[in-house]
Structure formats: C-alpha cells, structure tokens
C-alpha cells in the first residue's frame, strides 16, 4: 500500500508540470518568444496593419487546421483540403456567374464541401482504403475539376457587402472581424473534442482503434463525420479566399494542405494519432504565420519561408521523437532499481 504511493510520487508529476511541460506549451512558448523578439527587433512588426494582415492571411489555414487536427488524431490524414479550397472557389464563381443568388451559392458550395468530405470518408471508412491513398486521389480529382471548370478565366464582381465583410476590422484594434468567426469555430471544436463522448472517441480511435471499437466507439461514423467536417471547413476557406481576393480562380489553395499539415504536426498532434490538443494546433498555425510575416518584413523572400516551414516540421517531429526515446530510456533506468525497492518492503509489511 505504502509502496504504491511512493511509486505515484516518484512517477507522477505535479500539476503545474503536467500543464506547463507539454509539447503544446513548448509551441505556445516558441510563439510568444517569436512575437516578443520580432516585436522588439523588427520595426512595424507590432504594427496594427501587420497583425491585421497576419490574421487575415492565416484565417483559412486556421479553420482548416481544426478538423485536420481531429482527422490526424484518429490516425487518418486528409491531403485533399487545398484542392477542395480551389474547387470551392471555382464552383462559387461558376454558380455566381450563372446568376444563382450569392447567398444560395455559398450554401451550395458548403454542401459540396461536405459531399466531397463524405466521398473521402466513405472510401476510407466503408471501403477500408488508406486515407493517404484516397486523399491523394481526391486531391488530384478536386484540383483537376477546379481548374477544368473555370479554365483560364476568372470570375469577379462579387457582392460588395460580402467582400467587405472579409476585410472588416474591429475598431482600430488590428483584429479582423473574421477572427470572431474563427473563435466561435474554435470553441465548437474544443467542445466537440474535449467535452463530448464523440471527441473522446477520437482520441481512443487514434490510440487503439480495435479497443475503441470494443468500448463502443462508432469507428466508421466518427471517421466519416471528421472527413465531412474537413471538407466543409475547406469549402468555407475557399469562399473566404474568393471574397477576400474578389476573384474566383481554380488554382487558389495550391499547397495549402502542406501548410495545414505542417502546422498541425508542429502544434503537437502525433503523426501516429491519439495525441494532440487544439490550442497547440492554433499556436502552430500562428507560429508559421508570425515567422513568415516577420521574415517578410526584414526582406527575406517567400522561398526562405518555405525552407523554414519545412525545417520546423521536420525539426518538431525529430525533436519529439528524440525526447520520447530519451524519456523511455530514463524511465527504464529509474524503474529498474525502484522495482526492487518496492518489492522488498512488501513481504516485510505482511
């Protein structure tokens, strides 16, 4: 009895450590450090306009990263999101140019996003195909339809009220109005993931799919819903890009999937599934965004930012794996002697 409490004290960490010494907090810390250093060292970084542009540019990545994190926590992946953004742009432009009322067009595009996600989800969950293979296929399919539909033409002239909404700034705070939309979505996703049986099932599926099924998690339904969410959020991202730029083109969102996945992995979601938190993912997206805009301000080109994104992605997974293997080794070393000390007092106590 006493032996077990000793064991707990030895292995369990105090509450403050459990909260602060996590992968997510490391990224949050890195983000704060970046903001602090850049804010002090780079002129105009702390400027209202920089903040405004940063948040505005990262909105689509932010909202797509939310369902992507959930998909990746179950151990799946969706690399078709960038293409769905492009397809949404094309279809929105096409519907609008055909005279469909704009509000109806947006609803139809969101439904199309959900349908695209349903296609991914059904192929993955019902037919049992690997998510990577399916979404490589739909990535090419969606992008092909997107550029095929509009060809080389572009559609412009969207309703002023809607395009203005994407640029609307709350007072002179530098915070775009659409960030409120993101915060609402963030709250919904946090609630879904952390406070519902459905959300806990997502973690369970990622940790041990079979065990989760035997514990009553509906595996097929969960995976399908998550792909539908990813498709819908991508469609929303596509609508946003179209309105922000005021033009619909088929090549919008090219490579966005890579940025989203990089941010999600950087934010602490395990590539093996089962581990991750949404605030870490948001910090990951903002870190990439902040680094990009800081570097752009000091005149570094977009190519270097690409390199840095790649290095961050690889660095974060390599570091995570190094830390895990180091911890495992230390656990083995400390566990070996303490096991004997635990075993010894037990018979004497009886």
């Amino acid at each position, binding site marked *: 009895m006493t032996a077990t409490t000793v064991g707990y004290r030895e292995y369990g960490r105090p509450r403050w450590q459990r909260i602060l010494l996590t992968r997510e907090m490391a990224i949050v810390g890195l983000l704060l450090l970046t903001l602090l250093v850049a804010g002090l060292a780079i002129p105009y970084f702390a400027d209202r306009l920089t903040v405004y542009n940063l948040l505005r540019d990262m909105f689509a990545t932010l909202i797509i990263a939310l369902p992507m994190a959930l998909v990746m926590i179950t151990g799946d992946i969706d690399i078709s999101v960038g293409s769905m953004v492009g397809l949404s742009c094309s279809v929105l432009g096409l519907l609008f140019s055909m005279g469909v009322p704009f509000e109806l067009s947006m609803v139809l595009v969101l439904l199309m996003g959900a349908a695209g996600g349903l296609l991914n989800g059904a192929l993955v969950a019902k037919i049992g195909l690997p998510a*990577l293979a399916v979404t*490589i*296929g739909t990535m090419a*399919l969606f992008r092909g339809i997107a550029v*095929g539909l509009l*060809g080389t033409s572009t559609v412009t002239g969207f309703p002023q009220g809607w395009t203005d909404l994407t640029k609307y700034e709350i007072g002179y705070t530098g915070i775009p109005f659409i960030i409120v939309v993101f915060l609402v979505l963030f709250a919904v996703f946090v609630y879904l993931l952390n406070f519902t049986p459905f959300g806990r099932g997502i973690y369970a599926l990622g940790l041990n799919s079979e065990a989760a099924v035997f514990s009553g998690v509906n595996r097929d339904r969960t995976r399908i819903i998550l792909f539908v969410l990813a498709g819908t959020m991508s469609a929303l991202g596509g609508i946003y890009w179209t309105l922000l730029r005021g033009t619909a083109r088929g090549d919008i969102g090219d490579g966005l999937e*890579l940025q989203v996945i990089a941010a999600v992995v950087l934010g602490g979601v395990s590539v093996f599934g089962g581990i991750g938190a949404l605030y870490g993912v948001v910090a990951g997206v903002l870190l990439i965004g902040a680094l990009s805009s800081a570097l752009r301000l000091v005149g570094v080109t977009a*190519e270097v930012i690409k390199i840095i994104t*790649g290095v961050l992605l690889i660095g974060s997974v390599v570091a995570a*794996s190094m830390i895990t293997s180091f911890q495992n080794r230390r656990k083995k070393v400390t566990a070996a002697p303490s096991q004997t000390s635990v075993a010894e007092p037990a018979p004497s106590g009886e």
Partner: protein
Amino acid sequence: MTATQTTAAPTSAASAGSRLMQLLRRRETSILVAIVAMVVVTTAVRPTFVFSGDGWRSLLLNPAIYIVLAVGVAFVIISRSVDLSVGSTMGLTAFAIGSLYIAWPQMPTVVAFVAGTLFGGLLGLVNGGLVAVAKVPGMVITLGTMYIFRGINILWAGTTRINASQMGPDFLAFGNSQVVGIPALTILAVIVAIIAGWYLHNTRSGRELYAIGSAPEAAELYGLAVSRRALMSFVVSGAMAGLAGVMFAARYGTIASNAGTGYELQAIGAAVIGGVAITGGVGTVAGAAFGAFLLATINSALPVLGIDSLWQRAVVGALILAAIILDRVLAVRQKRRLIAERMEP
C-alpha cells in the same frame, strides 16, 4: 497459397491455361490494354498522333521521365512509406546539373548523368536518414524536405533560368537523339526499369522490401535490417529522381526553379494506378512503369480528344481512386476465396 497450388497442378496444359489466365488478370496487362486503347482511339481521331515523326517521338519520349520517377517511388511505397519530395529532388538536381555545365562547359554527358544520379541519391539519403532517426512516417519527413529542396532551388536560382546555350551540345543532342526510331531517353528509362525490376524480384534485399512492406513488425522480429532497407529505398527513390532531373535538363534544355513541381503526385499516381499498393508489400516495377506510360499518354491524348488539358489532373485523380478501389475489391475477394478453400476438407 495460390502460387503453390498453380505449380502443383497435375497437367501441363491446365498449368499453361491457368498461367495465361493469371497473366490476363494481372494489373500490368489491364494497364497495357488501357494504353493501347487510348492510343488507338486517339490515333483514329488524329492519325498524326502516332503516324508522324513528331507524334511517334513524343508518344515514346513523354513517359520516360515519369517512368524513372514512378519506379523510384515504387521502391518506397512497396516498403510501406511514401516519398513526396521526388518532384523537388528532380527540380533541384536539374538545376544543379545546369549549374555544373556553366562551371565546366566540357563536362562529358556520362559524367552529368552519374553526377545527377548521385546528387539525387544524396538527397534521398537525407530523407532516409531523417526517417530512420526520427522513426516517423516518411510522409511527414518528405513533406518537409519537399518544401526545403524546393526552397533551396528557388533561393539558388532566383529568377534566373538556365538555357540550352549554357549546357553541353553533346548532352542536349543525347537528350533528343533516337536509336532505331526510339528516343535514347526512353531506352535509358526502360533499361533502368528492367534493372530495378530484376533487383526487386530476384535479390534478397529486394524481396526483403516486400516483406517489410507487408508486415514491418514481423520483418523486424524475423531479423531483417528494417531501417537499413528503408533507408536504401529512399536513396533509390532520390537517385531515380536525380536521374529524372538530368533527363529533364537534357530533354528541355531550359531549367527554371519551378521545374518538376507537381511531379511527385504524378509519380505516386502512376505507381498506384500500376498496382503498387500504398499499404505496402504489393506491386511491381513493371506496373509502376506502365502506370507512368498511361499517365503520360493521357496527358498528350486529352487535347487531341478535344478535352482541355486542364482536366488532366481530374482524370488522374479518378484513375487513382478507381485503381485503389479495384485493388481493395480484388483483395477482399481473394481473402474470401482463401477462407473458403481452407473451410473445405
């Protein structure tokens, strides 16, 4: 299981018949049929698609780069991983070879090809090394290096592009030469594919890649050098992408920093369409090569058939989905048959 039963068939006639059936059922055969059908239909619409010097040449030359890329990627996919960086590796190598020609205008063609292949192999070693050290899926690492290699390429090249006049005349002549009506680059690609196919099919380390791809844990328990083989598959994939980069330089003569963008998707698509399962352990080099040939043929046939080439990616996507669904259906059917056979006394 099925293989042993086929060989144990009593009469040679039955054996030959079932072997023919097996050949017909192979993915390679159906892809070949699809290629032939595509070529026939397109030629019926526009005879010059095949029956002209230029048409014949592009029909054979266009697939060469895709074949080399797809064969390399097949090595990685068979060992149950994926390499997303081949397009960037190819572009970076093409630019490196161009730069090498600027520094050393008299460089022999052979040196260019060997140097490019080695350079690509080196980039593959970076991928494989990181995958081995971090013990994370190759997809994540190569997603990162895809960014990094491309970024280095653009940083290095800036807005400059390397033109034909800056490269060796022999080198460019080789890229556009033909041997008995067949482009030299295509012959090179086929030779490389045959060697790779022989290696995967016949050597011990080649078979081990299949074993690792089928069941990584079992391969580890059995004592196979899993991480060394995985490393090797990435080096092969990188080297093939490097070779493809040299071929790109030799063929087009103009290299910008965006060369090879999007080729990774075509290469993986070609391999998957050709029957290399993304779940590992299944597929052949021949399948990947035929898949690449089919994709390249679709590329050039679509405009002739009156379809905007912008739709090409949609066709590729639909083909990938069809291929993996077909694979799955066949696998389920085979599993059922094996269970049924076991049930019988």
